[in-house]
Every structure is written in C-alpha cells, then in structure tokens.
C-alpha cells in the first residue's frame, strides 16, 4: 500500500464516522462493550468450527447497511491485512491431512476445516474492529474508554496522537514526495537517506510539540482534555446491548446454521 493510499484511508474512516444513522447515534460505550463481547464469542469457537460461524456475519452485515458504510471499501481493507493470518493458517492443510468428514463424496481434511475456520474468524474480527471505528468516531471511542475506567493519561495520549497524526503524516508525505522527486530508480531509497529523513522528521516533530505545548498552556491546559459532549446510556443503547447479548448467546450455543440447513434439506 502506498503512502498516499494509507493516508487517505485513515481520513476516509474518519469521515465515515460523522454519519448520522441509528448505529452512529448509539452510545460509544454500548458499541465498545458489544464489540468486545462479539470478539470473545467468535474467538471462543473450537478450532474446526465452520458452520457455527456463519450466523455471526449477520452483525457486520447489519452494521454495514445500518450505518451506510461502503461495502467495497471495507472488503478492501480486510483483504489488505489478511497476509499474516493466511500465512500462519495455510500450514494447517499441509500439516493436518487427516480426513475429517466426507461431504458429497469428497474427503475434506481436518486442516482445510481449521484453515477455513481461521479465515472466517479473521474476517469477522477484523470487520468488527473496522466497523467500530467507522460507526463511532475515534474521540468517541476514547471518551468511552475513559468512562469505562481506562487511565486518563492513556486516553489523552490517544487523543493527542490522533489529533497530530494527520499533521505529521502530511509532514511525512511532503518529505517522501521530495525524496521521490530527487531520486531516480532505487537511488535515494537506501538506509542512509532514510535515517536522515527520519531525523529531520523527528526534529520537526519536537519543534511542533513545543509550540503546541505553549499554545495549550496559554489556553489553560492543565493536563486533562475535558469534553463538552455529555453522553448518557439511553433506552436504545440498553436495547441494542441486550439484543446483542441474547443473539450472541443463541448463535454460540445453538447450531443455528445446521438447523437452517436441515430445514432447507427437508424442503428439497
């Protein structure tokens, strides 16, 4: 992924979180808690589970459509980060060649089942994280974390990082462009130039930090970032959470997909 693409991706996720749908309006705390529960439930499935994971795609589907998030953008983001899980998972079919089930005359090895299971879990967990940020703004998540008991220092850390991320990324982009204009082929892409560039970026960062600090001091900064927005858990949030918990429990402990499969088989 090129620098510009990464940069614009962050910006796009940020803009998506400004939407005003039902999903966007839910209290960030409810969404954070629901996401964590969802992740634990998905990951708690045993190694060879495949069919049981299918119903869980309902949640990302509902959030995607409910929050009006572009599907293709999300799919692309999920694909970009897949290499590590694929890289580790692909060894399962090679190492675990024992036949697990015979489906319609084909012998399916246990390794392929566990690989498929890893891939499904991967898609579910990654989309959960991305959808959380796309439907809840980053500051929203930070304030939710603060209210859920995360140390204030860490939360203001996150807020600062996020604020200056775009500024420093633009700084880095200018440096990269300058390097590309002055270099031909691989010339200038080596370690020596890289170290100098980072050094310059670091010095600029420090100068900026100092200016920011004085500007904040003059505006009354006392080590904490207060928020004007008072959020409170309302009835829709509680409803959302309880529906989430109940459906997660049902999908986890009852073979919903298999049940639907039997019904379909009986129909035909």
């Amino acid at each position: 992924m090129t620098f510009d693409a990464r940069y614009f991706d962050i910006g796009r996720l940020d803009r998506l979180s400004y939407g005003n749908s039902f999903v966007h309006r839910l209290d960030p705390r409810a969404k954070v808690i629901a996401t964590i529960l969802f992740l634990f439930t998905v990951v708690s499935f045993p190694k060879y589970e495949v069919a049981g994971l299918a119903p869980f795609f309902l949640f990302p589907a509902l959030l995607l459509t409910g929050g009006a998030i572009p599907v293709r953008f999300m799919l692309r983001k999920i694909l970009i980060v897949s290499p590590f899980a694929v890289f580790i998972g692909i060894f399962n079919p090679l190492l675990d060649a024992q036949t697990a089930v015979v489906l319609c005359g084909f012998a399916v090895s246990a390794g392929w089942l566990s690989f498929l299971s890893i891939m499904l879990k991967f898609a579910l967990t990654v989309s959960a994280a991305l959808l959380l940020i796309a439907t809840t703004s980053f500051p929203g998540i930070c304030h939710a974390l603060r209210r859920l008991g995360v140390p204030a220092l860490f939360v203001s850390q996150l807020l600062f990082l996020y604020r200056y991320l775009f500024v420093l990324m633009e700084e880095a982009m200018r440096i990269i462009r300058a390097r590309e204009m002055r270099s031909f082929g691989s010339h200038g892409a080596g370690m020596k130039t890289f170290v100098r560039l980072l050094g310059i970026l670091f010095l600029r960062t420090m100068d900026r930090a100092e200016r920011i600090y004085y500007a904040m001091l003059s505006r009354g900064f006392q080590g904490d970032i207060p928020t004007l927005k008072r959020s409170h858990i309302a009835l829709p949030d509680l409803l959302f959470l309880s529906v989430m918990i109940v459906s997660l429990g049902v999908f986890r402990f009852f073979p919903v997909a298999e049940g639907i499969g039997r019904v379909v088989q009986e129909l035909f």
Partner: protein
Amino acid sequence: MHMADALLSPAVGATLWAGTAAVGGYAAKKLKVQPDDKMIPLMGVLGAFIFAAQLVNFTIPGTGSSGHLGGGMILAIILGPSAAFLVMASVLTVQALFFADGGLLALGCNIWNLGFYPCFLVYPFIYKPWIGSNKRRGRILAASIASVVLTLQLGAFSVVLETLLSGKSDLPFGAFTLLMQPIHLAIGLGEGVVTAGVINYVLSARPELLESMATSRLPGTTLSLRRVLITFAALAVFAGGALSLLASTNPDGLEWSIAKVTGNGELRDTEEGIAQVLKTIQQKTAFLPDYGFRQGVNYQKKPDTPPSRPQIGTGTSVSGLVGAATTLGIIVLIGVGIRSCRGKDAQP
C-alpha cells in the same frame, strides 16, 4: 509482526490483556507522580511521529525488500520506559482500529510483544547500563542494534508461544520458531541501525533536545531487577493458573453443552422455535425414530466420528454446510434489502 485475532483463543487473549493492563496501569501511575504536564502532549506527538515514520520505507540493502521503523526502542531511549510504553500502546491501538493490524482482542498481545519487552526489559537492563553516560556514536550503534534485535526476538518468540497456546494453528513449535526468529533477526538488524542513526543524528544536530528530555523525565524511573523478576514470577503464576483453569473447564464445558444440544434431540426445540412456519414438515418427521440423524444425512456419521477428535463434527455435516450457505445468503439478502429500502427513502 502483529498477532491476529483469528489465531487467538479467548484464554490467551484475556491473559495477555490482563498483563498489558497491569503494566499500563503501573506506567500511568508512575507518570502521574511527575508534576510536569509537558510530557503529555510530547508523548502524543511522538506517537504520531512513530506512526508517520512507519510509513516511510527504506530498501534493506541486498534484499530489495523494504523495512520500516518499529518504534518501541527509539521511544524508550527518548522518553524512558513508562512513557514509552504508553505511547507504544496508543500507537498500536490506533493501528488496530484504523488498519485492523492484528485486531482488538490481539491488541493485548501486540502491546505486550512490541511495547513491554523494549520498554521494561531491554531498555533498563541492556541499553541503559551499556550506554551509561558515554555518548559515542559507535557505542550507541552497537547498543541499539543489540537491544532491538533482542527485543524483536523476544516479541517473535512470544507470537510463537501465543499462537501455540491458543491451539488454532497446527504449526509445530520447532518449525514455527525457525520460521519466525531468522526473519526477525534480519528486521531487527535493520531497525537497530535505523534507531541508532536517528539517535545519533539528533545528538549531532540538536544535542540539547535529548538532554532536556532526560532531565524532564521523572527521577524515579530506575527499576530494580529484583522487582521486575518478582512481577514476572507473579504474572507467570497468574497466567499459568488462569490458562490451566480455562483449558480444563472451557473446551470440555462448551463441547459438552454443544454435543448435548446437537446430539440429544434438543435441536428439535430450536428448529421449532426457528421454523414454526414449517410445522407440517416437523410433524412429518416427528415419528421418525431417530430425529437427529435422518436417512438423508445418515451416511456422514455424526455418531461415529472418531472419539479422538471430538471437536470436529458438530457443524461440519452436509446440513451444516447447507445451513452455513443458506445463512450467509439470507444475511446478504437482508443487507441488500435494507440498503435498497434506504435508497428509496433517500431518493424522494
């Protein structure tokens, strides 16, 4: 390399989260003692710096592949352990949210692997004693290469351990270790050189910057090896206890309940609940002797799965497959339906 959610088991994920949260709380408490609130914006901006710096690539000499800065060690050198750990944690949090690098459950593991080792282990016990008050270029280079390599080796080895303990991958311990450690040796060498280069550059261009940073750090950051070892021992005992507890109760309990649900005909209840409409079919099948394993799906043997692999078989039958496909189809239809409804709403 980032650990991924899909390869984790809940027990391992929760344990590492607990460890990370404990260290993070300790670091936050340590920093709070310091009255100077100049540190807070500085930390945030440096986090953004690491983020931006990671986007600048360089080609690794001789290989043609590209590397980038990891950041844990350079932060520890500049900010000191506690602040560096928090900055690293926030960088990884933003990465997990925006790039889905790893994932939220694996975030605990990633902060531990990439933040704890450089900040609380390698920096205070290797780098700092090695450098002392001596600021010669060669010494900084040697110390940073050694520290970064060690950091990455520890991190990579932890990824191996976490993956193996989770039991989602079939990679054997030896092969996995042989795969991970050499790759990270190469990355570590590159990153060590870059870390030393940046530190040396700053030292030669603006030596007073690092000096002032060192003085504005709180004086009490000296960790005693004994306390760290005691903490480690406590964590190990806790982790061992938690893991063995979860390992013995969790799979059995869950497997057992699922087996009970699918095997003992309790599925019938759920089907009635789900498909009340199809009652006629239900009634037709009601007098079949063994409801769960009807003729149509009998040949693939739910009952005679080999007992050595009890975890396979609950959802991997033909009906499981059909069901999964149908479920996904329904979900897509729901999504498309909602979307087209919304489109209509939006148009007029």
